Protein backbone atom coordinates (compact mmCIF):
# COMPACT_ATOMS: atom_id res chain seq x y z
CA UNK A 1 0.00 0.00 0.00
CA UNK A 2 1.32 3.35 -0.96
CA UNK A 3 -0.43 6.67 -0.80
CA UNK A 4 0.57 10.28 -1.27
CA UNK A 5 -1.30 13.38 -0.29
CA UNK A 6 -0.87 16.67 -2.15
CA UNK A 7 2.88 16.28 -2.63
CA UNK A 8 4.78 19.42 -3.53
CA UNK A 9 8.42 19.85 -3.98
CA UNK A 10 10.82 22.65 -4.84
CA UNK A 11 14.54 22.38 -5.29
CA UNK A 12 16.38 24.70 -2.99
CA UNK A 13 18.30 26.53 -5.66
CA UNK A 14 15.23 27.10 -7.87
CA UNK A 15 12.62 28.23 -5.41
CA UNK A 16 10.49 29.72 -8.10
CA UNK A 17 9.52 26.46 -9.63
CA UNK A 18 7.46 24.07 -7.56
CA UNK A 19 6.48 20.60 -8.65
CA UNK A 20 2.88 19.67 -7.98
CA UNK A 21 2.29 15.95 -7.98
CA UNK A 22 -1.05 14.23 -8.36
CA UNK A 23 -2.09 12.08 -5.43
CA UNK A 24 -1.23 8.43 -5.75
CA UNK A 25 -3.23 5.77 -4.02
CA UNK A 26 -2.26 2.20 -4.67
CA UNK A 27 -3.96 -0.63 -2.86
CA UNK A 28 -2.28 -3.86 -1.84
CA UNK A 29 -0.18 -5.40 -4.63
CA UNK A 30 -1.34 -2.85 -7.13
CA UNK A 31 1.15 -1.70 -9.70
CA UNK A 32 1.37 1.62 -11.48
CA UNK A 33 3.18 3.34 -14.26
CA UNK A 34 4.26 6.94 -13.97
CA UNK A 35 4.42 8.62 -17.32
CA UNK A 36 5.41 12.05 -18.38
CA UNK A 37 7.78 13.96 -20.59
CA UNK A 38 11.31 14.53 -19.38
CA UNK A 39 11.96 17.32 -16.93
CA UNK A 40 8.52 17.12 -15.44
CA UNK A 41 9.78 15.60 -12.20
CA UNK A 42 9.39 11.86 -12.58
CA UNK A 43 12.64 11.03 -10.86
CA UNK A 44 11.93 13.67 -8.22
CA UNK A 45 8.65 11.94 -7.45
CA UNK A 46 10.41 8.62 -7.19
CA UNK A 47 12.95 10.04 -4.77
CA UNK A 48 10.16 11.58 -2.74
CA UNK A 49 8.47 8.21 -2.55
CA UNK A 50 11.72 6.61 -1.46
CA UNK A 51 12.27 9.24 1.21
CA UNK A 52 15.46 10.44 -0.42
CA UNK A 53 14.01 13.92 -0.78
CA UNK A 54 11.91 15.83 1.68
CA UNK A 55 8.72 17.29 0.16
CA UNK A 56 7.84 20.92 0.64
CA UNK A 57 4.34 19.87 1.47
CA UNK A 58 2.33 16.67 1.65
CA UNK A 59 3.04 13.18 2.90
CA UNK A 60 3.98 9.76 1.63
CA UNK A 61 2.43 6.76 3.34
CA UNK A 62 3.84 3.31 2.83
CA UNK A 63 1.69 0.73 4.54
CA UNK A 64 0.66 2.51 7.70
CA UNK A 65 3.91 4.44 8.01
CA UNK A 66 4.20 8.10 7.17
CA UNK A 67 7.66 8.44 5.68
CA UNK A 68 7.90 12.11 6.64
CA UNK A 69 7.34 11.37 10.29
CA UNK A 70 10.28 9.02 10.64
CA UNK A 71 13.47 10.17 12.27
CA UNK A 72 16.66 10.09 10.31
CA UNK A 73 17.79 6.72 11.60
CA UNK A 74 14.31 5.25 11.39
CA UNK A 75 14.14 6.40 7.81
CA UNK A 76 17.47 4.71 7.13
CA UNK A 77 16.21 1.43 8.44
CA UNK A 78 12.84 1.78 6.81
CA UNK A 79 14.38 2.51 3.44
CA UNK A 80 16.75 -0.39 3.73
CA UNK A 81 14.05 -2.77 4.72
CA UNK A 82 10.97 -1.83 2.75
CA UNK A 83 12.02 0.09 -0.32
CA UNK A 84 13.78 -1.28 -3.35
CA UNK A 85 15.03 1.20 -5.89
CA UNK A 86 16.08 0.36 -9.41
CA UNK A 87 17.98 3.36 -10.65
CA UNK A 88 17.97 4.75 -14.11
CA UNK A 89 21.71 4.60 -14.15
CA UNK A 90 23.05 1.47 -12.58
CA UNK A 91 25.33 2.07 -9.60
CA UNK A 92 27.21 -0.67 -7.83
CA UNK A 93 30.06 -1.21 -5.43
CA UNK A 94 32.74 -1.32 -8.09
CA UNK A 95 35.26 -3.29 -6.12
CA UNK A 96 32.87 -6.08 -5.24
CA UNK A 97 31.67 -8.98 -7.32
CA UNK A 98 28.10 -9.41 -8.43
CA UNK A 99 27.20 -11.79 -5.65
CA UNK A 100 28.90 -9.61 -3.05
CA UNK A 101 26.85 -6.64 -4.20
CA UNK A 102 23.71 -8.65 -3.63
CA UNK A 103 24.88 -9.83 -0.24
CA UNK A 104 25.69 -6.34 0.99
CA UNK A 105 22.25 -5.17 -0.11
CA UNK A 106 20.65 -7.99 1.83
CA UNK A 107 22.82 -7.43 4.84
CA UNK A 108 22.11 -3.72 5.08
CA UNK A 109 18.37 -4.35 4.83
CA UNK A 110 18.74 -6.15 8.17
CA UNK A 111 16.72 -9.07 6.94
CA UNK A 112 17.97 -12.61 7.23
CA UNK A 113 20.23 -13.71 4.45
CA UNK A 114 18.21 -15.87 2.14
CA UNK A 115 20.64 -17.87 0.08
CA UNK A 116 17.96 -19.81 -1.74
CA UNK A 117 16.25 -16.65 -2.88
CA UNK A 118 19.56 -15.26 -4.04
CA UNK A 119 20.28 -18.33 -6.10
CA UNK A 120 16.81 -18.42 -7.61
CA UNK A 121 16.90 -14.76 -8.44
CA UNK A 122 20.24 -15.12 -10.16
CA UNK A 123 18.86 -17.99 -12.18
CA UNK A 124 15.82 -16.04 -13.23
CA UNK A 125 17.90 -13.11 -14.28
CA UNK A 126 20.37 -15.36 -16.05
CA UNK A 127 23.27 -14.12 -13.91
CA UNK A 128 24.34 -17.38 -12.28
CA UNK A 129 27.36 -17.84 -14.50
CA UNK A 130 28.78 -14.40 -13.93
CA UNK A 131 28.03 -14.20 -10.21
CA UNK A 132 31.68 -14.10 -9.18
CA UNK A 133 32.70 -11.50 -11.72
CA UNK A 134 33.44 -7.95 -10.74
CA UNK A 135 30.63 -5.63 -11.75
CA UNK A 136 32.96 -3.78 -14.08
CA UNK A 137 33.40 -6.91 -16.14
CA UNK A 138 29.68 -7.29 -16.75
CA UNK A 139 27.95 -6.37 -19.97
CA UNK A 140 25.43 -3.54 -20.09
CA UNK A 141 22.50 -5.95 -20.07
CA UNK A 142 23.90 -7.93 -17.19
CA UNK A 143 24.36 -4.75 -15.21
CA UNK A 144 20.81 -3.73 -15.83
CA UNK A 145 19.61 -7.10 -14.60
CA UNK A 146 21.86 -6.89 -11.55
CA UNK A 147 20.39 -3.49 -10.84
CA UNK A 148 16.96 -5.08 -10.88
CA UNK A 149 18.13 -7.89 -8.63
CA UNK A 150 19.48 -5.33 -6.16
CA UNK A 151 16.11 -3.60 -6.12
CA UNK A 152 14.13 -6.70 -5.24
CA UNK A 153 16.47 -9.06 -3.41
CA UNK A 154 15.27 -8.01 0.05
CA UNK A 155 11.54 -8.36 -0.73
CA UNK A 156 10.65 -4.72 -0.27
CA UNK A 157 7.13 -3.49 0.18
CA UNK A 158 7.57 -0.99 -2.60
CA UNK A 159 9.64 -1.47 -5.72
CA UNK A 160 10.51 1.79 -7.40
CA UNK A 161 11.96 1.48 -10.87
CA UNK A 162 13.34 4.44 -12.77
CA UNK A 163 13.32 3.72 -16.49
CA UNK A 164 14.33 0.08 -16.09
CA UNK A 165 13.88 -0.69 -19.77
CA UNK A 166 15.49 2.31 -21.39
CA UNK A 167 18.58 0.46 -22.61
CA UNK A 168 16.97 -2.81 -23.51
CA UNK A 169 15.86 -4.29 -26.80
CA UNK A 170 12.29 -5.46 -27.33
CA UNK A 171 12.91 -9.00 -26.22
CA UNK A 172 14.74 -8.07 -23.03
CA UNK A 173 12.29 -5.29 -22.30
CA UNK A 174 9.49 -7.80 -22.34
CA UNK A 175 11.46 -10.10 -20.10
CA UNK A 176 12.34 -7.44 -17.57
CA UNK A 177 8.80 -6.13 -17.28
CA UNK A 178 7.28 -9.54 -16.78
CA UNK A 179 10.01 -10.39 -14.29
CA UNK A 180 9.37 -7.25 -12.31
CA UNK A 181 5.68 -7.95 -12.28
CA UNK A 182 6.20 -11.51 -11.18
CA UNK A 183 8.64 -10.55 -8.45
CA UNK A 184 6.30 -7.87 -7.19
CA UNK A 185 3.70 -10.54 -6.92
CA UNK A 186 6.01 -12.93 -5.09
CA UNK A 187 7.16 -10.23 -2.69
CA UNK A 188 3.63 -8.94 -2.38
CA UNK A 189 4.82 -5.45 -3.05
CA UNK A 190 3.70 -2.42 -4.96
CA UNK A 191 5.58 -1.87 -8.18
CA UNK A 192 5.93 1.66 -9.46
CA UNK A 193 7.71 2.14 -12.75
CA UNK A 194 8.71 5.46 -14.19
CA UNK A 195 9.00 5.35 -17.90
CA UNK A 196 8.43 7.02 -21.20
CA UNK A 197 8.83 3.72 -22.94
CA UNK A 198 5.74 2.97 -25.03
CA UNK A 199 6.48 -0.76 -24.95
CA UNK A 200 5.83 -0.93 -21.22
CA UNK A 201 2.48 0.80 -21.26
CA UNK A 202 0.40 -2.15 -22.33
CA UNK A 203 1.59 -4.22 -19.36
CA UNK A 204 0.01 -2.04 -16.72
CA UNK A 205 -3.51 -0.90 -16.12
CA UNK A 206 -2.90 2.04 -13.91
CA UNK A 207 -1.15 4.99 -15.49
CA UNK A 208 -0.32 8.13 -13.60
CA UNK A 209 0.43 10.96 -15.91
CA UNK A 210 2.37 13.95 -14.61
Amino acid at each position, binding site marked *: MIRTTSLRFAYQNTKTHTFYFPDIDLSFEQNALILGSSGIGKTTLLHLLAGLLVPKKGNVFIGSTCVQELTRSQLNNFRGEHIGIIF*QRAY*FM*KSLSLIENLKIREKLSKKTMDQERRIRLLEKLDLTEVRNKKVQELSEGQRQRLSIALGIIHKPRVILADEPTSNLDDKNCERVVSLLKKEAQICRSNLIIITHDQRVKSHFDKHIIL
Partner: protein
Amino acid sequence: MVVGAKGSPLQLVLSTILHVDNPTGNISLDEALRIRKNPMIKEAIPVSYGDNYKGYKILGTSNQYLHKYGATCKEGKLNTKNFEAVLGSGAAKNLNLSIGNTFLGSHGLVQNEIDVHDEKPFAVTGILAPTGTVVDHLIITNLESIWEVHEHVDHEEQERHEEQEEHKEITALLLNFRNPIGALQLSRSINKNSSLQAAFPKLEIDRLLKFLGVGFKTINSIAIAILFVAALSIFISLIKTVRERKHELALLRTYGATTFQLLKLVFLEALFLSVVGFILGWFLGRLGLLLFSKLASDTYTYYLGISLPDTEEFFIFIIVFFTTILATILASYSLFKLNISKILADA
Protein backbone atom coordinates in the same frame (compact mmCIF):
# COMPACT_ATOMS: atom_id res chain seq x y z
CA MET B 1 88.99 8.53 30.71
CA VAL B 2 91.63 8.30 28.07
CA VAL B 3 95.18 9.45 28.50
CA GLY B 4 97.29 9.95 25.42
CA ALA B 5 99.69 12.28 23.67
CA LYS B 6 98.87 15.96 23.41
CA GLY B 7 96.69 16.99 20.55
CA SER B 8 92.99 17.15 19.90
CA PRO B 9 91.06 15.46 22.72
CA LEU B 10 88.36 14.54 20.23
CA GLN B 11 90.92 12.84 18.04
CA LEU B 12 92.28 10.98 21.02
CA VAL B 13 88.86 9.69 21.95
CA LEU B 14 87.88 8.84 18.39
CA SER B 15 91.09 6.95 17.81
CA THR B 16 91.40 5.06 21.07
CA ILE B 17 87.79 4.28 21.80
CA LEU B 18 86.10 4.07 18.42
CA HIS B 19 89.16 3.45 16.24
CA VAL B 20 88.00 5.81 13.54
CA ASP B 21 90.78 8.36 13.57
CA ASN B 22 94.56 8.36 13.68
CA PRO B 23 96.15 8.38 17.12
CA THR B 24 97.57 11.63 18.44
CA GLY B 25 100.94 10.06 18.96
CA ASN B 26 102.67 7.80 21.43
CA ILE B 27 103.30 8.26 25.10
CA SER B 28 106.04 6.64 27.07
CA LEU B 29 105.15 3.62 29.09
CA ASP B 30 107.02 4.93 32.11
CA GLU B 31 104.89 8.00 32.24
CA ALA B 32 101.75 5.97 31.82
CA LEU B 33 102.80 3.68 34.61
CA ARG B 34 103.34 6.61 36.86
CA ILE B 35 99.80 7.78 36.31
CA ARG B 36 98.57 4.32 36.97
CA LYS B 37 99.89 4.47 40.50
CA ASN B 38 97.32 7.10 41.43
CA PRO B 39 95.06 5.57 44.11
CA MET B 40 91.92 7.00 42.52
CA ILE B 41 92.30 4.70 39.56
CA LYS B 42 90.38 1.50 39.68
CA GLU B 43 91.54 0.07 36.44
CA ALA B 44 94.03 1.06 33.77
CA ILE B 45 94.28 -0.57 30.40
CA PRO B 46 97.17 0.31 28.12
CA VAL B 47 96.52 0.22 24.39
CA SER B 48 99.02 0.38 21.63
CA TYR B 49 98.38 0.25 17.95
CA GLY B 50 99.66 1.49 14.68
CA ASP B 51 99.59 -1.58 12.50
CA ASN B 52 96.90 -3.19 10.48
CA TYR B 53 96.20 -6.33 8.59
CA LYS B 54 94.21 -5.67 5.44
CA GLY B 55 92.67 -2.59 7.01
CA TYR B 56 91.84 -4.22 10.35
CA LYS B 57 93.66 -2.57 13.18
CA ILE B 58 96.01 -4.62 15.31
CA LEU B 59 95.58 -3.54 18.89
CA GLY B 60 98.12 -4.41 21.56
CA THR B 61 96.60 -4.38 25.00
CA SER B 62 96.21 -6.35 28.18
CA ASN B 63 93.60 -8.99 28.77
CA GLN B 64 91.61 -6.48 30.78
CA TYR B 65 90.62 -4.79 27.54
CA LEU B 66 88.61 -7.75 26.33
CA HIS B 67 87.19 -8.20 29.76
CA LYS B 68 86.06 -4.59 29.76
CA TYR B 69 84.09 -5.09 26.54
CA GLY B 70 82.71 -8.40 27.78
CA ALA B 71 84.27 -10.23 24.85
CA THR B 72 84.67 -13.97 25.18
CA CYS B 73 86.22 -16.53 22.92
CA LYS B 74 83.85 -18.26 20.56
CA GLU B 75 86.55 -20.55 19.28
CA GLY B 76 90.06 -21.27 20.43
CA LYS B 77 91.61 -19.49 23.37
CA LEU B 78 92.82 -16.06 24.29
CA ASN B 79 96.30 -14.92 23.32
CA THR B 80 98.87 -15.65 25.98
CA LYS B 81 102.21 -15.50 24.27
CA ASN B 82 103.78 -12.95 22.04
CA PHE B 83 102.65 -12.99 18.45
CA GLU B 84 99.46 -14.66 19.28
CA ALA B 85 96.30 -12.80 18.40
CA VAL B 86 92.54 -13.10 18.79
CA LEU B 87 90.23 -11.76 16.14
CA GLY B 88 86.97 -9.89 16.56
CA SER B 89 84.09 -11.78 14.96
CA GLY B 90 83.66 -9.29 12.11
CA ALA B 91 87.35 -9.18 11.40
CA ALA B 92 87.63 -12.97 11.39
CA LYS B 93 84.74 -13.31 9.00
CA ASN B 94 85.86 -10.68 6.56
CA LEU B 95 89.53 -11.61 6.63
CA ASN B 96 88.66 -15.26 6.28
CA LEU B 97 91.10 -16.25 8.97
CA SER B 98 90.63 -19.14 11.33
CA ILE B 99 92.50 -20.58 14.26
CA GLY B 100 96.06 -21.60 13.47
CA ASN B 101 96.34 -19.24 10.51
CA THR B 102 99.10 -16.69 10.48
CA PHE B 103 99.18 -13.20 9.06
CA LEU B 104 101.58 -10.33 8.71
CA GLY B 105 100.80 -6.92 10.02
CA SER B 106 101.68 -3.89 7.95
CA HIS B 107 102.63 -0.51 9.25
CA GLY B 108 100.09 2.26 9.49
CA LEU B 109 96.35 2.16 9.89
CA VAL B 110 95.37 1.69 6.29
CA GLN B 111 96.05 -1.30 4.18
CA ASN B 112 99.33 -1.22 2.28
CA GLU B 113 101.71 -3.75 0.84
CA ILE B 114 104.85 -1.69 1.06
CA ASP B 115 105.60 -1.56 4.74
CA VAL B 116 104.96 -5.11 5.83
CA HIS B 117 106.46 -6.50 9.00
CA ASP B 118 107.27 -9.69 7.17
CA GLU B 119 109.57 -11.36 9.66
CA LYS B 120 107.10 -11.43 12.47
CA PRO B 121 103.89 -13.22 11.63
CA PHE B 122 101.02 -13.33 14.08
CA ALA B 123 99.26 -16.60 14.81
CA VAL B 124 95.53 -16.69 15.38
CA THR B 125 94.69 -18.45 18.61
CA GLY B 126 91.08 -17.49 19.06
CA ILE B 127 88.05 -15.86 17.56
CA LEU B 128 85.78 -13.76 19.73
CA ALA B 129 82.03 -14.02 19.95
CA PRO B 130 80.23 -11.02 18.44
CA THR B 131 79.85 -8.24 21.00
CA GLY B 132 78.26 -5.52 18.91
CA THR B 133 81.12 -3.21 19.87
CA VAL B 134 84.21 -1.95 18.16
CA VAL B 135 86.02 -5.10 19.34
CA ASP B 136 84.31 -7.06 16.56
CA HIS B 137 86.48 -5.26 14.04
CA LEU B 138 89.81 -5.45 15.79
CA ILE B 139 92.70 -7.82 15.92
CA ILE B 140 93.88 -8.06 19.48
CA THR B 141 97.30 -9.07 20.69
CA ASN B 142 99.49 -8.22 23.65
CA LEU B 143 101.56 -5.11 24.07
CA GLU B 144 104.86 -6.94 23.83
CA SER B 145 104.10 -8.14 20.33
CA ILE B 146 103.52 -4.62 19.13
CA TRP B 147 106.77 -3.50 20.68
CA GLU B 148 108.69 -6.38 19.22
CA VAL B 149 107.37 -5.80 15.73
CA HIS B 150 108.55 -2.24 15.89
CA GLU B 151 111.83 -3.04 17.55
CA HIS B 152 112.59 -5.12 14.57
CA VAL B 153 111.89 -2.22 12.28
CA ASP B 154 114.02 -0.09 14.44
CA HIS B 155 116.94 -2.49 14.24
CA GLU B 156 117.46 -1.18 10.80
CA GLU B 157 117.32 2.36 12.01
CA GLN B 158 119.93 2.12 14.70
CA GLU B 159 119.51 5.53 16.19
CA ARG B 160 115.93 5.19 17.09
CA HIS B 161 116.47 1.66 18.20
CA GLU B 162 118.58 2.73 21.12
CA GLU B 163 116.08 5.26 22.17
CA GLN B 164 113.37 2.63 21.95
CA GLU B 165 115.27 0.24 24.18
CA GLU B 166 115.30 2.71 26.98
CA HIS B 167 111.64 3.37 27.25
CA LYS B 168 108.82 1.55 25.65
CA GLU B 169 105.86 3.39 24.28
CA ILE B 170 102.12 2.89 24.18
CA THR B 171 99.50 4.86 22.31
CA ALA B 172 97.10 5.57 25.11
CA LEU B 173 95.94 4.50 28.51
CA LEU B 174 92.29 3.79 29.26
CA LEU B 175 91.42 4.63 32.84
CA ASN B 176 88.55 3.70 35.06
CA PHE B 177 88.08 5.61 38.29
CA ARG B 178 86.71 4.80 41.66
CA ASN B 179 84.75 8.04 41.67
CA PRO B 180 84.08 10.91 39.23
CA ILE B 181 85.79 13.50 41.44
CA GLY B 182 89.04 11.59 41.20
CA ALA B 183 88.70 11.53 37.45
CA LEU B 184 88.25 15.29 37.27
CA GLN B 185 91.17 15.97 39.59
CA LEU B 186 93.50 13.68 37.75
CA SER B 187 92.51 14.95 34.33
CA ARG B 188 93.21 18.51 35.43
CA SER B 189 96.59 17.58 36.83
CA ILE B 190 97.53 15.58 33.74
CA ASN B 191 96.54 18.31 31.34
CA LYS B 192 98.36 20.94 33.35
CA ASN B 193 101.49 19.27 34.62
CA SER B 194 102.49 16.63 32.11
CA SER B 195 103.21 16.24 28.46
CA LEU B 196 100.14 14.03 28.25
CA GLN B 197 96.51 14.90 27.84
CA ALA B 198 93.43 13.38 29.39
CA ALA B 199 90.05 13.29 27.69
CA PHE B 200 86.61 12.04 28.67
CA PRO B 201 85.01 10.02 25.92
CA LYS B 202 81.50 11.05 26.88
CA LEU B 203 82.33 14.74 26.89
CA GLU B 204 84.16 14.56 23.62
CA ILE B 205 81.42 12.59 21.89
CA ASP B 206 78.86 15.04 23.23
CA ARG B 207 80.95 17.83 21.82
CA LEU B 208 81.14 16.06 18.48
CA LEU B 209 77.39 15.57 18.46
CA LYS B 210 76.97 19.24 19.24
CA PHE B 211 79.01 20.08 16.16
CA LEU B 212 76.78 17.81 14.16
CA GLY B 213 73.70 19.13 15.96
CA VAL B 214 72.79 21.53 13.21
CA GLY B 215 72.76 18.69 10.74
CA PHE B 216 70.65 16.54 13.03
CA LYS B 217 68.22 19.37 13.55
CA THR B 218 67.89 19.91 9.83
CA ILE B 219 67.28 16.24 9.21
CA ASN B 220 64.75 16.19 12.02
CA SER B 221 62.86 19.17 10.65
CA ILE B 222 62.84 17.60 7.23
CA ALA B 223 61.42 14.44 8.79
CA ILE B 224 58.71 16.44 10.55
CA ALA B 225 57.89 18.24 7.31
CA ILE B 226 57.61 14.88 5.58
CA LEU B 227 55.32 13.66 8.36
CA PHE B 228 53.12 16.70 7.78
CA VAL B 229 52.99 16.12 4.07
CA ALA B 230 52.14 12.47 4.71
CA ALA B 231 49.29 13.44 7.00
CA LEU B 232 48.08 15.90 4.41
CA SER B 233 48.23 13.28 1.70
CA ILE B 234 46.17 10.85 3.78
CA PHE B 235 43.66 13.64 4.17
CA ILE B 236 43.61 14.49 0.48
CA SER B 237 43.33 10.88 -0.58
CA LEU B 238 40.38 10.51 1.77
CA ILE B 239 38.66 13.53 0.33
CA LYS B 240 39.27 12.05 -3.08
CA THR B 241 37.84 8.73 -1.94
CA VAL B 242 34.72 10.39 -0.65
CA ARG B 243 34.34 12.46 -3.81
CA GLU B 244 35.04 9.70 -6.28
CA ARG B 245 32.93 7.18 -4.53
CA LYS B 246 30.06 9.40 -3.57
CA HIS B 247 27.83 7.37 -5.86
CA GLU B 248 28.68 4.20 -4.02
CA LEU B 249 28.28 5.88 -0.69
CA ALA B 250 24.91 7.33 -1.68
CA LEU B 251 23.87 3.93 -2.95
CA LEU B 252 24.78 2.39 0.38
CA ARG B 253 22.59 4.96 2.05
CA THR B 254 19.63 3.87 -0.08
CA TYR B 255 20.42 0.33 1.01
CA GLY B 256 19.79 1.43 4.56
CA ALA B 257 23.33 2.14 5.70
CA THR B 258 23.67 4.87 8.29
CA THR B 259 26.01 7.81 8.05
CA PHE B 260 28.02 6.29 10.84
CA GLN B 261 28.51 3.10 8.87
CA LEU B 262 29.78 5.11 5.92
CA LEU B 263 32.11 6.95 8.26
CA LYS B 264 33.38 3.63 9.50
CA LEU B 265 33.97 2.51 5.95
CA VAL B 266 36.03 5.58 5.11
CA PHE B 267 37.89 5.31 8.39
CA LEU B 268 38.77 1.67 7.88
CA GLU B 269 40.03 2.45 4.43
CA ALA B 270 42.18 5.25 5.76
CA LEU B 271 43.40 3.13 8.63
CA PHE B 272 44.33 0.36 6.25
CA LEU B 273 46.30 2.83 4.16
CA SER B 274 48.13 4.32 7.08
CA VAL B 275 48.89 1.02 8.79
CA VAL B 276 50.24 -0.46 5.59
CA GLY B 277 52.20 2.73 5.09
CA PHE B 278 53.54 2.60 8.59
CA ILE B 279 54.67 -1.00 8.34
CA LEU B 280 56.14 -0.47 4.90
CA GLY B 281 57.87 2.65 6.10
CA TRP B 282 59.28 0.85 9.08
CA PHE B 283 60.67 -1.94 6.97
CA LEU B 284 62.07 0.41 4.34
CA GLY B 285 63.65 2.48 7.06
CA ARG B 286 65.31 -0.55 8.56
CA LEU B 287 66.37 -1.72 5.13
CA GLY B 288 67.93 1.66 4.47
CA LEU B 289 69.71 1.51 7.79
CA LEU B 290 70.91 -1.99 7.03
CA LEU B 291 72.29 -0.93 3.66
CA PHE B 292 73.93 2.11 5.18
CA SER B 293 75.32 -0.01 7.98
CA LYS B 294 76.81 -2.43 5.49
CA LEU B 295 78.31 0.41 3.54
CA ALA B 296 79.62 2.02 6.69
CA SER B 297 81.06 -1.18 8.05
CA ASP B 298 82.89 -1.76 4.79
CA THR B 299 84.31 1.72 4.67
CA TYR B 300 84.79 2.65 8.28
CA THR B 301 84.50 -0.77 9.89
CA TYR B 302 81.75 0.91 11.82
CA TYR B 303 78.63 -0.97 12.73
CA LEU B 304 75.01 0.18 13.18
CA GLY B 305 72.60 -2.03 15.04
CA ILE B 306 69.21 -3.01 13.61
CA SER B 307 66.73 -3.00 16.44
CA LEU B 308 63.20 -4.19 16.93
CA PRO B 309 60.35 -1.65 17.05
CA ASP B 310 60.84 0.54 20.09
CA THR B 311 58.51 2.67 22.19
CA GLU B 312 59.24 5.80 20.21
CA GLU B 313 58.02 4.11 17.08
CA PHE B 314 55.00 2.95 18.98
CA PHE B 315 54.24 6.59 19.77
CA ILE B 316 54.62 7.46 16.12
CA PHE B 317 52.12 4.74 15.39
CA ILE B 318 49.68 6.29 17.86
CA ILE B 319 50.21 9.66 16.18
CA VAL B 320 49.55 8.08 12.79
CA PHE B 321 46.40 6.51 14.17
CA PHE B 322 45.03 9.78 15.50
CA THR B 323 46.01 11.64 12.37
CA THR B 324 43.96 9.09 10.48
CA ILE B 325 40.96 9.65 12.72
CA LEU B 326 41.29 13.39 12.34
CA ALA B 327 41.70 13.15 8.59
CA THR B 328 38.66 10.87 8.37
CA ILE B 329 36.49 13.26 10.30
CA LEU B 330 37.61 16.24 8.26
CA ALA B 331 37.29 14.43 4.96
CA SER B 332 33.95 12.93 5.85
CA TYR B 333 32.33 16.24 6.58
CA SER B 334 30.56 15.99 3.26
CA LEU B 335 29.19 12.58 4.22
CA PHE B 336 26.90 14.17 6.75
CA LYS B 337 25.14 16.26 4.19
CA LEU B 338 25.29 13.76 1.41
CA ASN B 339 22.54 14.63 -1.04
CA ILE B 340 21.61 11.13 -2.10
CA SER B 341 18.90 12.16 -4.46
CA LYS B 342 21.04 14.62 -6.33
CA ILE B 343 24.03 12.33 -6.59
CA LEU B 344 22.00 9.42 -7.89
CA ALA B 345 19.93 11.50 -10.28
CA ASP B 346 22.92 13.28 -11.80
CA ALA B 347 23.90 10.85 -14.45
